[in-house]
């Protein structure tokens, strides 16, 4: 008896393990048995976008004529962990059948063999009516189609009526009409609104709010200066005269000096708070910013970014779409689901309730037509007209693996320029050197 007691830890563990294994097999078997007739979809939407997606899926699952027995199961994966979870699980058969993500990981996932091409099903119905035209091309890699677009997102200029009743609207309209809406006049305008707040002199008001030290938000200035992050031939460009010009624009607007028109060290929640209070008159942000605005109190509008010497300050266009896994258990059924989720009915629902700009022309036209009779139409409410116009002029965000390496050094360089007044030449040279180092042997060996 005593001896048995002495061995108790061992026996105890053995039993615990056996019990857990038993429990485990029971759970796993029940999970696997239902697997053949479901389509697993991963996404990282939050808030309204998630709610509406769930509604659409519920509709699809409820209609046997649509789903033909294959129901969609949604898994929400946090945005930060999405790519890692996907690359971990897909090759081991644990991943989703279809998943929603922006187009900028296409190159990475394609080279790892995670994606299934969908061009077999691609037809006029599916691709012919998409707008802007860049949206389709974003998902094409080596003549094969890997994603169907859901929506496109890009930056735009927000401005609001301030608490004292003034608004930059009139001036912006005037400048646009006379064709003088360029970076110089934009800066002058922002400068005008950078002052002690007229309604509370203890506060400082700013003309502009944007994330000056972030490469994505810096892109319009680079494009307006005639530069590109990635050249036509796919080569990374960092320290070019255009990039230095663009960095100077950023420093002018938001650098650490008395003439800056943008508050330092902005973060999104802080920026939206300041905009809601009227302490920032204009903000450069994407459609996602709209959900942060206090619609009841703030009267705001969205418009084009300024240009420089006739070159438009084109923001990046990010296209969100649905991909199919190369391990999808039933590609035919999975594609049926994708077709529905990206289709007209779904697109319209997402546009009306989730603020996702429709990228199907017929949906756009139908919704636009509504606005003639109904001033509260969704197309006007979400400023789709403006976003769509800007999207047509936008530059598709590069999706190559090399381009993705660029963001971190570039952002670091911008932070140095904007926050610590480092000379653009020096900071960009540093970024160029770092990028070269990060690319390492992987790129040099060639593709």
């Amino acid at each position: 008896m005593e001896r048995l007691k002495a061995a108790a830890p061992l026996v105890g563990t053995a039993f615990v393990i056996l019990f857990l294994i038993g429990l485990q097999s029971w759970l796993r078997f029940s999970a696997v048995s239902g697997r053949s007739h479901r389509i697993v979809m991963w996404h990282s939407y939050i808030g309204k976008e998630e709610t509406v997606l769930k509604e659409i899926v519920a509709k699809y699952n409820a209609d046997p004529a649509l789903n033909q027995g294959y129901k969609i199961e949604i898994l929400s994966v946090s945005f930060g962990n999405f790519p890692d979870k996907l690359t971990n699980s897909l090759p081991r058969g644990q991943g989703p059948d279809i998943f929603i993500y922006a187009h900028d990981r296409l190159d990475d996932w394609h080279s790892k063999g995670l994606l299934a091409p969908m061009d077999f099903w691609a037809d006029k119905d599916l691709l012919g009516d998409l707008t802007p035209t860049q949206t389709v091309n974003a998902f094409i890699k080596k003549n094969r189609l890997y994603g169907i677009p859901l929506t496109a997102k890009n930056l735009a200029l927000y401005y609001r009526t301030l608490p004292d009743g003034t608004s930059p609207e009139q001036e912006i309209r005037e400048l646009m009409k006379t064709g003088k809406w360029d970076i110089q006049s934009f800066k002058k305008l922002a400068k005008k609104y950078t002052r002690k707040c007229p309604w509370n002199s203890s506060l400082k008001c700013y003309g502009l709010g944007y994330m000056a030290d972030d490469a994505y938000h810096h892109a319009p200035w680079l494009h307006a200066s005639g530069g590109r992050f990635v050249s036509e031939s796919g080569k990374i460009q960092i320290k070019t005269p255009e990039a230095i010009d663009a960095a100077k624009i950023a420093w002018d607007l938001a650098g650490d000096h008395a003439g800056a028109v943008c508050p330092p060290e902005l973060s999104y929640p802080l920026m939206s708070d300041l905009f809601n209070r009227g302490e920032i008159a204009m903000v450069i942000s994407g459609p996602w910013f709209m959900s942060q605005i206090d619609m009841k109190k703030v009267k705001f509008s969205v418009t084009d970014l300024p240009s420089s010497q006739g070159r438009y300050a084109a923001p990046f266009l990010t296209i969100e779409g649905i991909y199919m896994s190369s391990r999808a258990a039933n590609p035919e059924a999975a594609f049926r689901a994708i077709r529905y989720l990206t289709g007209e009915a779904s697109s319209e629902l997402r546009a009306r309730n989730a603020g996702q700009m429709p990228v199907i022309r017929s949906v756009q036209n139908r919704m636009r037509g509504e606005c003639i009779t109904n001033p509260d139409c969704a197309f006007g409410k979400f400023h789709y007209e403006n976003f769509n116009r800007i999207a047509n002029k936008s530059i598709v965000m590069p999706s190559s693996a090399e381009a993705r390496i660029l963001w971190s050094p570039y952002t670091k360089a911008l932070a140095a320029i904007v926050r610590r007044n480092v000379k653009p030449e020096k900071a960009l040279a540093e970024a160029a050197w770092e990028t070269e180092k990060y690319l390492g042997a992987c790129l040099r060996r060639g593709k």
Partner: protein
Amino acid sequence: MNSHSSIRMFLTHLFLIVFTILTLYPVMLVVRKSLSPGDNFSRSLNPVPKELTLKHYKDVIGSRDSTGRSLFGRQFLNSLVVSLITTIMGLFLASTAAYSFSRFRFAGREIGLTMFLVVQMFPATLIMIPLYVILDRLGLLNSMTGLVLVYSTTAIPFCVWMLKGYFDTIPKELEEAAWIDGATRFSMFWRVVLPLSRPALAVTALFSFMTAWNEYILAETFLNEETAYTLPVMLQHYVGSHSTSWGKFAAGSVIVSVPIMVLFYVLQKHLVGGLTAGGVKG
């Protein structure tokens, strides 16, 4: 003498109150965010919210999946089950091992002890991929069992070290006395050493519980169903690609930290039990 000590008491309290308020200020900001509407960070310094709303809490607790099942209850339960089993398993595995390390001078003891310490030194992010493969091989992905096993093995090294340190301070004479009374090794361990190490057991229990309770990266990587997720995983889902639901994030954080405080409150009395209750003197 009496007035002197009451002045001292007053000063002690004053210091503690000021210190506690300073400590709690950032926490109060989180609470303020969770109680005020919208997702913006108010830039005012006042920790009391201007407008009170329970909407964020309602949203967090009322979250549902696409088939309309309530998620919060399940996820809370998952968290609780995983953390409790982790605590029990961690304590059980660690106390036996720590006892051995503390009481026996066996071959390989040094190596073993070092090993238990060394394995924590490798950053977890790089261990995740091999761990995923192992769990996949064992068929333990997407299950609580796998998560519990991973968490308890992560917590073991710490627990072993803490308990070993404490066991070392318990005089061997007590066990020798029990040995003379005819006790076995196991009953010495179970009846003499463990009851005397309640403070250390409380600390390690709290630690194991928190390891499991606050973890989200492994949980999210290993689990593939929303109803299987734990609470911190859900919390991460309020952080989106472009915007974050700060209100819900803060409300969720407050909810997540409440059980730990409750647990700590329960464990407190053990923290101050220990040797003072008897033992050496007797």
